């Protein structure tokens, strides 16, 4: 397959400096964008069918089109969500470390499309190598007048800043991210107003995921039809898929949208390690529902994975093997989300620790038969619409699907008064 996002990324390859990046067609997409009217760039991205790679798959062009038209020079912001803390997810770090210019070019195209004067990269604290490389690339661009005032004589001004975070998963939620960037506690904001209308410091703001931005240079360079043609299914482009857990060769791979899950699991991840059997997987990070054997032949396509009862999320599989206790795995996940809850709304703040406590009781052999009903109650209680943001609904997705696919494991814990996986 043609490599697009990872054409400069691989073993033994260094991230291209500005000269090398430009020699291989870099910033051509941005130059094309500068020759177009902002609204034309938005339309082109709409036509490309690019969907956000941050987890929800929201159409990017449509998101941008919600930015209200304004006076030239009006303050607007574009923000890169580089907080990447979804358990099981490591694609954005790879893209940032491997090809910082590709990512910057994407942000610059987005900035021109929504006429933002200022951009912030909200980077998770641990990604210090990415931080150094981004800072270098920003400096290179500033010297080359690719950033700053009157960029390449076009009249477009754009300055870009790196903001390194200080922890907490909730910062990845876009309105919490905005609060954090303003120097506040990272609690989500009510929507509406959506950030595109009133975001950072009350100004129109577009927040996109790192991988989303990385696609833009190629769309602007080769056009929407080419981009749509990359996908094997209705979804356009390529995607960084990955797999972790007890697979032979865990990793991340750029593959066409619509690649069958079995191909990712068997061909790229190499199947299970010797001595381990496959039981199921979370298709796109710790906040997605389990899928099992019967789903392996499905394509990685937003709507198909949705219909199967899960979400493509970040597209990075977490594989469950036959020697890992599914109850303990769900307990690990629920504990993560309980710990990372921002504490703003009661169902999430109180509900997740409570669900975690019940899971711990079951796992340690003190479970009661009615505990499974209680857990099911929690999955309804914390469903979308009942909490202030999507953290809590995401947190119960692995739980609700584990209760469906691995129910006998829960029951065995209760009957045997202990974990059958511990020796």
């Amino acid at each position, binding site marked *: 397959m043609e490599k697009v996002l990872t054409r400069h990324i691989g073993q033994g390859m260094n991230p291209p400096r500005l000269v090398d990046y430009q020699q291989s067609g870099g910033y051509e997409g941005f130059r094309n964008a500068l020759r177009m009217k902002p609204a034309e760039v938005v339309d082109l991205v709409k036509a490309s069918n690019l969907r956000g790679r941050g987890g929800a798959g929201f159409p990017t062009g449509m998101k941008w089109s919600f930015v209200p038209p304004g006076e030239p020079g009006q303050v607007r912001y574009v923000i890169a969500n580089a907080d990447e*803390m979804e358990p*099981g997810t490591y694609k954005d770090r790879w893209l940032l470390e491997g090809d910082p210019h590709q990512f910057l070019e994407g942000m610059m195209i987005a900035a021109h499309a929504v006429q933002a004067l200022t951009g912030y990269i909200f980077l998770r604290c641990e990604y210090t190598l990415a931080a150094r490389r981004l800072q270098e690339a920003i400096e290179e661009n500033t010297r080359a007048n690719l950033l700053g005032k009157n960029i390449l004589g076009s009249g477009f001004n754009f300055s870009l800043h790196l903001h390194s975070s200080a*922890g*907490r998963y909730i910062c990845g939620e876009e309105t919490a991210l905005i609060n954090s960037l303003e*120097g506040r506690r990272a609690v989500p904001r009510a929507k509406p107003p959506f950030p595109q209308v009133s975001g950072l410091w009350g100004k129109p703001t577009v927040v996109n995921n790192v991988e989303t931005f990385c696609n833009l240079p190629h769309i602007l360079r080769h056009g929407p039809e080419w981009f749509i043609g990359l996908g094997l299914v209705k979804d356009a482009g390529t995607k960084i898929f990955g797999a972790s*857990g007890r697979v032979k060769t865990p990793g991340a791979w750029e593959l066409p949208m619509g690649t069958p899950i079995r191909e990712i699991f068997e061909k790229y991840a190499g199947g299970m390690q010797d001595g381990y059997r496959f039981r199921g997987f979370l298709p796109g990070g710790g906040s997605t529902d389990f899928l099992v054997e019967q789903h392996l032949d499905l394509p990685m396509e937003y709507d198909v994975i949705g219909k199967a009862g899960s979400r493509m999320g970040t597209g*990075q599989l977490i594989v469950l093997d036959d020697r890992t206790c599914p109850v303990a795995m769900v307990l*690990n*996940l629920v504990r993560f989300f309980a710990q990372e809850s921002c504490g703003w709304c009661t169902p999430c703040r109180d509900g997740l620790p409570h669900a975690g406590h019940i899971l711990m009781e079951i796992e340690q052999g003190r479970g009661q038969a009615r505990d499974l009903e209680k857990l099911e109650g929690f999955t309804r209680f914390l469903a979308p619409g009942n909490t202030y943001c999507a953290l809590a609904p995401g947190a119960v997705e692995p739980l609700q699907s584990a209760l469906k696919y691995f129910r006998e494991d829960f029951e065995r814990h209760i009957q045997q008064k202990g974990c059958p996986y511990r020796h």
Partner: protein
Amino acid sequence: MQERIEMITLEGRTGSADGLSPEEAAEILAGLSQYPDNQAMSIEALKIVQHHRGWVSNESLKAVAAFLRLSPEEVEGVATFYNLVYRQRVGTHVVRVCDSVSCWIMGCEALVGELQNKLQLTLGETTADGRFTLLPGPCMGACDHAPVVMVGDDYHFDVKAEAIDALLKPYRQKPL
């Protein structure tokens, strides 16, 4: 560190640098130019002070607040929210073991056990010589190399319990 510094201002936005070192004040001032107001700099300012002093004491916090013309309560509200702002003294090297799902599947619990043995402490504690603090940490974005341990800013991939001594060795040898 605590020498007196005259008022340093960025377009009149900052107050006295009392209680900050010249380097700290200069770094905070440089960072401020990225943002339209002082509050946005509060988290980064705490990180700058932490970088120089190892952690954020009450005195450090007050100095940051005064410099940014924010109330200490505002800055404390932020400081306590973010887990990578240390409001207690920590060791020179903070060892964080990822305990999220992929690392858990790949055996992070054994690593925690081994680290506790080798460092003679339990999670959350600091060694008597102030060299190491051991903490659990959330998914570190390297799950294809699980289990993952971070020491300060350094990533350690595919860590095996048998290799803990070798992993710690360079940090044991660094002067405190």
